[in-house]
């Protein structure tokens, strides 16, 4: 199989495939980890607040403590169930970001500097979104 790849593909494609397998593992691990944290926080949340009546009909916006990564981590240390769920969601959001960061390194190893720059642009936009608050 590697034979036909080398002959019919451009140089670098074999590395691309290996990199993609690493990326696949990275994504899977991120999602499983995030789901586990959300599940744990969710169970805690239901035990504590399961019998309250939720009101999502009108928009209040979540409190400050559930908005920024710093405050969420702070809440997790206080064993706040909602903060633990948010931490899991943050991990989930971070998963594709980690994938982009890893791709930048992978392109640098391949000496494809045009794509290092393109990848860093994507990373910059993502960082703006995560840390602009």
């Amino acid at each position, binding site marked *: 199989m590697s034979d036909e790849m080398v002959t019919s593909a451009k140089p670098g494609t074999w590395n691309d495939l290996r990199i993609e397998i690493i990326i696949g593992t990275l994504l899977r691990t991120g999602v499983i980890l995030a789901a586990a944290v959300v599940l744990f926080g969710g169970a805690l949340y239901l035990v504590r607040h399961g019998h309250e009546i939720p009101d999502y009909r009108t928009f209040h916006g979540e409190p400050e403590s559930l908005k920024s990564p710093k405050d969420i981590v702070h809440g997790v240390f206080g064993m706040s169930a909602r903060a633990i769920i948010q931490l899991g*969601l943050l991990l989930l959001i971070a998963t594709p970001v980690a994938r982009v960061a890893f791709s930048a390194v992978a392109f640098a190893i391949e000496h494809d500097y045009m794509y290092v720059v393109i990848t860093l642009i*994507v990373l910059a936009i993502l960082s703006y979104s995560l840390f602009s608050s």
Partner: protein
Amino acid sequence: MNTLEFTGVVGLGSLLAGFLGALTGLGGGVVVVPMLTLLFHVDIRYAIGASLVSVIATSSGAAAAYVREGYSNIRIGMFLETATTAGAIAGAAIALHVSGNSIAVVFGLVLLYSAYLSSRHREAHGPHLQSSKLADKLKLNGTYPTPDGRQPYNVTGVPAGYSLMFGAGVLSGLLGIGSGAVKVLAMDQAMKIPFKVSTTTSNFMIGVTAAASAGLYMSRGYVAPGIAMPVMLGVLAGSMIGAKVLVKANVKALRYLFAAVIVVLGVEMIVSGATGKL
């Protein structure tokens, strides 16, 4: 309904959404927002926040499986992500300045369009298409596996595809969906990329696009843990089951059924939005 019951029914609904979304290839996100707003009367901003999170989960989960097959083109994906992420930020910014009811109307129109796209026939591209200069420069041409070994393909229509991708990003940031239908349209129709490469690369990009707007939604307080938790876990589990069943199921009949459901939801969203009920 107390929190326990709310979590249970939303979780089950999300499971079904993720299951059908994976089977039909349309993604679970498109039905999560209508389900939450029309059925459970959740404010559309909370619904979008929860949907975005579930979109990242399914995209990353499915991409992990796809990349091993060697279909997705990482350079095409990364290059177009500069357009989708910038679009997503723009979409999330627009969402701040328009009412929930107008968002609902746009959402309904996109649902109708997605249903139309999914019911249309796809034609295969000729294998020896002339590649454009821009595609050469950006190293977008690649190879993909076929029964006769890896086949090379060429890419064209880069500016048109790039613009469509920006639009897909705006819709994703505004509506909290993956915009997979528009992404595939850009790659399949405008750039003439083989269909299997388009769908897998699109799926790969959806998570990154959604992450760009999800960060903003979270910092605005639009991501409510009590809603996002059952939605994310439900859609993720549903899409994983869906991907397993996919091989055996009669997808064609299901595709039409799901398209019909989407049409109904689309009309409902437009009517509710236009009459100011959301």
